[in-house]
């Protein structure tokens, strides 16, 4: 496959027509460079594999941060009819409801100078970060199952300093999806999850204190509560070992069930009928893991708020600490979309892709309906992050989907090679970015050069019409998992 196999529909839209084995077209939102890279790393082949799945209701899409994954590419989006289609764990990922949460404040960035060090150390020491760390909560099974049912609401209702229920509407799906089948969750998944609520995890998970450096859309920024020069806080984490185990359990179960019946190009693309018992069970387990992730991020947010209050000796209210939005970037959800000119209920899989609903959509908070859903796209360590807003174009061309981040371009080994002898922490400090982590090796693996240029990804995302820039943030304090 190469560049000439694609039809360039517009500067950032490339379509691969149905060829042998494909049931629909593949559509990539990319610059020429991103497309070439995706062809080289074979993530395009993964988009084609998804296009070959039975009953696919939409095109097989790839967002501008496309790169190689398991099953779907990262940045992959596809929909299947809710009544007759299929569901794929490989279309969600192992870290179910990995996602991003953003808080705004009314703290000017220059006030952080006296607090950055203390805050960084406090976050590192107080928030469980890194490999296999136990969370803030160690729950018994009954309490854990309740959390899996109630999601973020469980933190609000049952934990001291759990925050205000009014915040929940600023979480995608209000931080809770329907879950009523605790018996389908394995004991191993429960064992992994019940000690990890309130933990950040490792790898590319982070907490960042950022300065809002630039506003592109004054009106939308005002609606979202973002002001140039103020501090924002971003959290990136997911469903931890619980979600990983759930995903593994169901890939195994679906694989075994369909061993002789279904031939898939990639064993990570095993699928079950949405309306089959196994399909329903996976979707229930997905909801449980999603609820875990929302509860996890909600608890971490409350902990961070407490730290700010302690440090600044002021209240969250006076500091203007507000939840802007929380969104998933590894999930499958039932949504209504226009498919071949008709409104249809479909199961939209987004793996390393975010929802980007337009102004007026009923599924976004009413406060945001005049401007559209916030779309949170973090950069890599030491680089900018962005807030964008969803668009009508995205609903029309990408099932209301957008990019989710920068995507790796260097392996961990290569990142370690190019940073040999370099003190990454000092290097970032020279750029006024304080980094806190328990792992020096981990920091080297996560250097900015290991990731694609976030500004390029954002330019393509906006250029393709998937979402529109609202604000750009730069990191001041980074706590890495």
């Amino acid at each position, binding site marked *: 496959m190469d560049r000439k196999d694609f039809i360039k529909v517009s500067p950032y839209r490339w379509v691969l027509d149905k060829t042998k084995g494909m049931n629909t077209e593949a559509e990539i939102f990319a610059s020429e460079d991103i497309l070439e890279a995706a062809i080289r790393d074979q993530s395009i082949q993964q988009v084609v594999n998804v296009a070959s799945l039975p009953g696919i209701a939409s095109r097989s899409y790839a967002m501008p941060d496309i790169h190689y994954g398991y099953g779907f590419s990262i940045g992959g989006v596809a929909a299947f009819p809710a009544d007759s289609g299929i569901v794929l764990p490989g279309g969600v990922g192992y870290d179910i409801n990995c996602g991003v949460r953003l808080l705004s404040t009314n703290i000017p960035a220059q006030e952080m100078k006296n607090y950055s060090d203390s805050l960084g150390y406090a976050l590192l020491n107080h928030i469980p970060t890194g490999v296999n760390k136990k969370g803030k909560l160690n729950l018994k099974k009954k309490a854990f199952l309740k959390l899996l049912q109630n999601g973020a609401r469980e933190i609000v209702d049952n934990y001291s300093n759990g925050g205000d229920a009014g915040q929940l509407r600023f979480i995608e799906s209000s931080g809770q999806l329907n879950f009523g089948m605790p018996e389908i969750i394995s004991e191993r998944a429960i064992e992994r999850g019940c000690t990890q609520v309130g933990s950040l995890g490792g790898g590319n998970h982070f907490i960042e204190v950022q300065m809002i450096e630039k506003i592109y859309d004054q009106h939308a920024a005002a609606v979202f509560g973002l002001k140039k020069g103020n501090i924002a806080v971003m959290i990136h984490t997911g469903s931890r070992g619980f979600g990983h185990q759930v995903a593994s359990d169901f890939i*195994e179960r679906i694989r075994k069930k369909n061993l002789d019946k279904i031939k898939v190009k990639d064993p990570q693309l095993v699928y079950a009928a949405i309306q089959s018992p196994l399909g329903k069970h996976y979707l229930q387990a997905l909801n449980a893991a999603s609820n875990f992730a929302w509860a996890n991020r909600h608890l971490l947010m409350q902990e961070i708020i407490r730290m700010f209050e302690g440090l600044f000796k002021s209240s969250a209210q006076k500091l203007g600490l507000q939840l802007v939005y929380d969104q998933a970037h590894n999930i499958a959800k039932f949504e209504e979309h226009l498919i071949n000119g008709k409104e249809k209920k479909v199961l939209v899989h987004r793996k390393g892709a975010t929802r980007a609903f337009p102004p007026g959509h009923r599924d976004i908070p009413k406060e945001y309906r005049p401007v559209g859903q916030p779309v949170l796209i973090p950069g890599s360590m030491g680089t900018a992050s962005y807030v964008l807003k969803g668009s009508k174009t995205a609903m029309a061309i990408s099932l209301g989907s957008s990019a989710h981040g920068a995507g*790796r*371009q260097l392996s961990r080994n290569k990142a370690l090679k190019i940073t040999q002898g370099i003190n990454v922490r000092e290097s970032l400090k020279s750029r006024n970015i304080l980094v806190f982590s328990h792992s020096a090796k981990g920091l080297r693996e996560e250097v900015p050069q290991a990731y694609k240029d976030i500004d390029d990804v954002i330019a393509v995302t906006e250029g393709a019409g998937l979402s529109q820039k609202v604000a750009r943030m730069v990191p001041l304090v980074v706590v890495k998992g």
Partner: protein
Amino acid sequence: MSDFEVISTTADVGIRFRGNSYHGFFENAAKGLNLLYFDTDLPSAAQTPATVYSFIYHGDSIENVLVNFLAEAVYLVQIRELALTGILLQDAGDTFIDVQFLTHPLHCKPDIEIKSVTYHNLEVKRIGDTLSTVVIFDI
């Protein structure tokens, strides 16, 4: 090629290993996993007796058995916080394994957190008695 080594993909990591018997194959899988976690081979026998964890699995293919063997090893290291110090293979074939993991308490944290053992491009190759493969982990 050495009997086991760590490999790196753009997004994740894996292990490449081989063995001239089922025992060698699974032992080198465990050694590769240890190398990934701790940058070291399976440690030599500790002075205290090992705690033994038995694992029996019946699958549908050697790839399926291997994924579940490694998933169990990951569980022991990450969740039970144990160091793998050896394996005793009671019996194994293309669709089953009966093995004992020898473990000791962990004294240092693993370098990475494995989300899952994947089936990504997983195929166990055979040349004569030698089995070899590459397993990719989502980290």
